[in-house]
């Protein structure tokens, strides 16, 4: 199903949200996946990797289709993103971010590089992460990720919707404004407020 074909009044993301809250233990998710990932990087544990694959590959495909990849492009790029996680497992440090964020970044870069064919994205961005994020204690990171999920759930409906349109359709803020018949300044101030709210309480690195 292509989420773009849904009538505009019914946000597919609100449905997603309602469904996901019934899922398994969200408070343990980030910790669970980092733990699986640690088994991959330390012991090249295939079972752990395939658990990550089974959970995340369909999510990455869904994300890529939302960005405008065709079905087969989304499959190909999702496989490549997951394979990259396997190949670069030793560079994945559980203390420097979650598996979901890592995959999000890789999938986005692959889409922009291969589908949109913008040259900038393969070379830039990865080393910003490697160099910059100071090791935090693992529990702290999981609390942050869980905290972020909880904060997203408490955003006002319009802010949550704009955020999801921006992330899952990679629409420019102008395109969102046009689609919703909303002034650009209003779209931006909603997004700005949403970001500040999500950011507050998260530790900034020095």
């Amino acid at each position, binding site marked *: 199903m292509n989420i773009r074909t849904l009538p505009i009044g019914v946000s597919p993301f609100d449905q997603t949200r309602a469904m996901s809250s019934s*899922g398994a233990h969200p408070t343990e998710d980030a910790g669970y996946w980092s733990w699986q990932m640690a088994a991959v990087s330390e012991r*090249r544990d295939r079972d752990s990797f395939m658990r990550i694959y089974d959970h995340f590959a369909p999510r990455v495909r869904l994300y890529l289709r939302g960005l405008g990849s065709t079905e087969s492009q989304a499959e190909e790029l999702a496989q490549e993103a997951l394979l990259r996680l396997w190949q670069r497992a030793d560079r994945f440090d559980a203390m420097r971010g979650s598996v979901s964020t890592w995959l999000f*970044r890789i999938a986005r870069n692959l889409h922009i590089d291969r589908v949109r064919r913008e040259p900038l994205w393969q070379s830039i961005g990865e080393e910003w992460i490697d160099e910059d994020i100071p090791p935090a204690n693992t529990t702290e990171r999981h609390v942050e990720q869980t905290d972020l999920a909880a904060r997203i759930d408490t955003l006002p409906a319009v802010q949550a919707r704009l955020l999801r349109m921006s992330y899952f359709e990679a629409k*420019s803020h102008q395109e969102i404004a046009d689609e919703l018949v909303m002034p650009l300044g209003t779209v931006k101030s909603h997004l700005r407020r949403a970001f500040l709210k999500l950011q507050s309480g*998260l530790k900034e690195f020095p």
Partner: protein
Amino acid sequence: MSPRHHLDETTVLGWASGALSPEMAAVAATHLDVCRHCRSRLATAEGIGGTLLEQQQPSTDDAMRMPHLREHMLAALDAHPNRRVPPRREEATAGPDNLPRALHPYFGTSWRSLRWRWLAPGVRMIRALRTSGHALILLRIDPGMSMPLHSHGGIELTQVLAGSYDDELGHFGVGDAADLGPETLHRPVTSAGGPCVCVAALDAPLRFPGWFARMLQPLVGL
């Protein structure tokens, strides 16, 4: 380098979500490359992306295709054992003649090879070719010049690469970003010393009032 003027929250979000035009992204990248504060905010914005990705709920339809893809992945694990990749060290920080790497696709790699075009007394410019619809320009303005008052039809994202200027919003030096909305009206004045060089992405024409506009706009083609 510790910039004092940063990217707007919406630009950080736009980068994280892949929503910036290539030209805006190129200017944002020149800032992110030198600004730890904005990289930290970007890490948060990408964390939001990861959280939203995690919250996606794939349909059972999608799961149907899994066995076939899963087999391919298992085969790929054998073909690609994970390997130790030494962290990449870009040659980005090379010599002083090197332009910021995000600008290479548009302006080449070397400051010395830039072919500046005369625009007005004390003002030179290069406009990038092969852009997506947004304009990307390098501006080189002599020291002590006062630019005319102008506003922007849309968004203008500017990064200072050399020299500095002052306007109604403050002092902008090397590393600073000016992330301006359509409502901003400003009159930049470049500082004494060396020329001020900026890279700017614009999503709509600059609006200069009066004679300067009539003289400049046909030349700039913005």
